């Protein structure tokens, strides 16, 4: 005898979220009840916000080391570790890190357009990384 296979009911993440909000809400939705005008307006506003989010997310912003070597590179990690262990422990270091975070997106953006700036940045950061790695080796 062939067993009749039960038809799989696919559920969407938004509906599962709605069930967590209020199961009766989901029941009404599935029964085809129309959403209020206010809710429709909110949805349209939400869609527009999502478009804005996408634009924001696709904007480039990474810091100098991530730009030069990549986010997970060992040299970037070394610089991060220097920041966390040596700079963020005292007030002047924190100020320096804040200034760096304020300036670096601009520098990254400029260096991705002007190769001379990129080379100059690479030269400076390579020097810093080299010294850092030497210090780590000595320790």
């Amino acid at each position: 005898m062939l067993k009749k296979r039960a038809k799989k009911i696919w559920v969407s993440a938004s509906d599962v979220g709605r069930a967590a909000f209020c199961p009766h809400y989901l029941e009404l939705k599935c029964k085809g009840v129309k959403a209020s005008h206010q809710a429709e307006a909110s949805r349209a506003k939400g869609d527009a916000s999502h478009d804005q989010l996408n634009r924001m997310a696709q904007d480039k912003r990474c810091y100098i080391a991530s730009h030069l070597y990549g986010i997970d590179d060992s040299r970037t990690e070394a610089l991060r570790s220097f920041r966390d262990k040596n700079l963020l422990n005292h007030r002047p270091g924190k100020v320096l890190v804040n200034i760096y975070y304020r300036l670096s997106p601009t520098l990254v953006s400029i260096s991705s357009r002007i190769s001379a700036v990129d080379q100059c940045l690479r030269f400076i950061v390579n020097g810093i990384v080299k010294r850092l790695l030497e210090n780590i080796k000595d320790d």
Partner: protein
Amino acid sequence: MIDELLYLLFSAAALVIAFYSIDRKFVKKNKLCIEGKLVWTDEGRQTKPFFNNDYGVLGKPDLMYKIKGGILAVEYKSRKGEIYESDIVQTKCASLAARGSGYKVIRFLVITSTQKQYYDLPRSDKALYKEIEPYIVYTRQAKSGSKLPATPGRFKCKSCAFNYKCTYVQED
């Protein structure tokens, strides 16, 4: 002395103006401040959702970033105020769906206009499914036409899209 001071002040002002001009021209800031590489974006209705065949769920987060050890899913809510349980459940379900399509989602981030919160996900799909199973069951029941309980609340009912039809609505 005053001349030197004025010269210094003028130079500082010129530097600040120059920096802000360059800044505005070159930089489009990512206000999300997420460290990671953007690997997937929900472009709206034309973007197909992810399917997890094992658990029968589908969905899509708003964004996905490659982070150390896996993928970070991002769910954005345009409203102001706190993050609700329903936002967390929805993102967990979307993450489970994305896992079915090969994205190893290990964390997720829920953002509202005023709040931002990271959550870690269980390693196994089964454990993740278990966390949201009651809501998945409710959803299947609703799709089969069953009656479901209401969980009214003053603020919840105020924002509900079906409050004008609901008999359980809680008013002020």
